[in-house]
């Protein structure tokens, strides 16, 4: 579904991604792990062109993203939902408006349809009672669940999660992971950057280990966690497990 070839990304002189290639298949759940600064978030953000790669190609359903005009990129982003570490809910809008604004302003849904869909999604993430609250009055876990529902409101084909639980208090991690896990059961294609190794083992079809701008190795959770091939992977796993 998504292919990326020889991706390079540098910020000034600092090279964050050095020659990354790979593929995300339909209905696949891919988890990217690795130490801080390894480039995993940057890779994720390159997939929907929030960061424009310095060189290389990204192909999404036969379309080469890196050659598109601005308008077409907007159109393609609709199909890729993104969930951020810091939630990034719109603080000036109520929960339900957060879910409705993009379907109405971007897709052109009418108010009634958008409302119906938003209510359904809130129910799915277990926050029907918070419809008219404002983001600032919600806990971190609740905010992140709203953010997931907001991304789903655009009916994406892929969901990208950028460390969705890193900014949460420990007792709230569970409720967010539960929502993501429920999502895997619908067959949604997902790319998840996370530090939750237990969770990675549980939901991933495939795990990618990145370090210093390279993909060091990848495989099923069993392969990668039980018998890692590279020394760097072993060192990393020894620290986090």
């Amino acid at each position, binding site marked *: 579904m998504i292919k990326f070839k020889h991706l390079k990304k540098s910020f000034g002189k600092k090279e964050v991604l050095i020659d990354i290639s790979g593929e995300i298949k339909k209905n696949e759940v891919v988890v990217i792990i690795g130490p801080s600064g390894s480039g995993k978030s940057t890779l994720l953000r390159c997939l929907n062109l*929030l960061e424009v790669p310095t060189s290389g190609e990204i192909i999404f359903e036969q379309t080469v993203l890196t050659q598109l005009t601005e308008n077409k990129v*907007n159109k393609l982003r609709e199909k890729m939902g993104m969930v951020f570490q810091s939630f990034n809910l719109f603080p000036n*809008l109520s929960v339900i408006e957060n879910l409705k604004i993009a379907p109405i302003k971007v897709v052109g849904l009418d108010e009634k349809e958008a409302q119906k869909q938003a209510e359904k999604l809130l129910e799915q993430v277990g926050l029907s009672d918070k419809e008219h609250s*404002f*983001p600032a009055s919600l806990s971190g876990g609740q905010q992140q669940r709203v953010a997931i529902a907001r991304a789903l409101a655009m009916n994406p084909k892929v969901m990208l999660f950028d460390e969705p639980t890193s900014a949460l208090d420990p007792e709230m991690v569970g409720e967010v992971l539960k929502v993501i896990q429920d999502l895997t059961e619908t067959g949604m294609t997902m790319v998840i950057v996370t530090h939750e190794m237990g969770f990675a083992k549980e939901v991933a079809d495939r795990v990618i280990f990145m370090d210093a701008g390279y993909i060091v190795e990848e495989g099923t959770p069993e392969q990668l966690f039980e018998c890692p091939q590279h020394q760097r992977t072993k060192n990393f796993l020894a620290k986090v497990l």
Partner: protein
Amino acid sequence: MMKKRILAIIFTIFLTSIFSTSLPVLAADESVENIKSKGTLVVGTSADFPPYEFHATIDGKDNIVGMDISIAEKIAEDLGVELEVQDIGFDSLLPALEVGKVDIIVAGMSATNERRESVDFSDVYYIGGQNIVVRPSDNEIYTSKGDLNAKKIGVQTGSIQESLAKDQMPESSIMSLSKITDLILALKTNKIEAIIMEKPSAMAYVANDKDLATFDGGFILEEDEQGAAVAVKKGSSNLVEAINQSISTINENNLTEDYLKEAGQLLKESQGPQEQTKTMFNYWNYFAKGTGYTILISVVSVFFGSILGIILSLMRMSERKIVRIPAIAYVEFVRGTPMMIQIMFIYFAVGYLINIPALASGIIAVSLNSGAYICEIIRSGLNSVDKGQTEAARSLGMSKQTAMRYIIFPQALKNIWPALGNEFITVIKESSIVSIIGVSDLIFQTKIVTSLSYRGIAPLAVTMVIYFMLTFSLTKLLNYYERKMNHDQI
């Protein structure tokens, strides 16, 4: 106050140098034909100079009257056109004439050599003299200009008295204000010891105010400094001829005496004994009119200033240099030059090419000025919104414009609301500068009330209260909306 005069001179030189080089004197002098085809003679004057010209309430209506106005009426009548009088500050009169805002100046102006360099003059229509006005308690101490050596003297900015004081009383320090009424206030409050004034004016003020006394100044006067003459645009010899004919009729029939008598009568009627018992409430219609104009100017300017500010701020944040640079240059330039000059520039310089009325010039200038400040406020507001908000909006497929309009801008607006409110209040107060081009805003009307009531402090107090009521109610209104926007912060 010295500064103001220097600015006016620089400005005049600037204007004449630009336009005199680009527009050589036209061969045919059509000054008279132009006025006749317009059907109106526009006269510029500074109506705080009784008995030459002053405001008086006749049948409940405000009018500009006086000897000069009677003479202007006579000139207009002889030309067979209507008379229109424009009240402008004395030091703005010459630039107004040069750029064609007015056709002639009749303002008790003496034809000095200095002024002859930029305008032409008719024959002298009245010879007065120069008096000194003092407080009655000092009448014994000061009896000639020699007694005022090394004292503080008041004169009208840009007037003949100013140069007289400089030349013949070099030891004295000079305070120059643009309105005579302000000078009188300064005298009464002991800020200055004496005012040098045209004899008829001095007589008129003293006759109407028991707190003033006057005597002949004993100045040595040049021939050309003695009399009042009508000023016209350079090169309008036909017009000068027509005016001279009217003046000679006036002189032959001794009409000036009648005019002066009539002016004195009007002065007495509108400012006679019963006037002393009047309160500021009697002038409410002046204050109301001024407040109306001030509100109009502020509201319209803030509206257009905001639109301009939004456009400029978006330009400033553009990735393209060619869009960004002009916006930056505009903001820096407008912020780096005084609003007073901007207003005069729009009115006089731009007005030279297209005739913009004073009110519109004022609104345009204040809008253009405010736009630059609002641009910076909006820019800081947009920058204050977390980058994650843009990313979240873009990741939902929103275009830059949609994200800006529905997500970023509303949040920025909330952040900058107090700063915007501040700017709006500033506009209400700063817009008072438009009074220098004769827009009848609150400050302008206050000066009229001052000259009508012969009282200095009361009108100022009323105006201060009105300004405060305006700004305070605006603050309350802004606070209300600020609270409404804050609902998302629990």
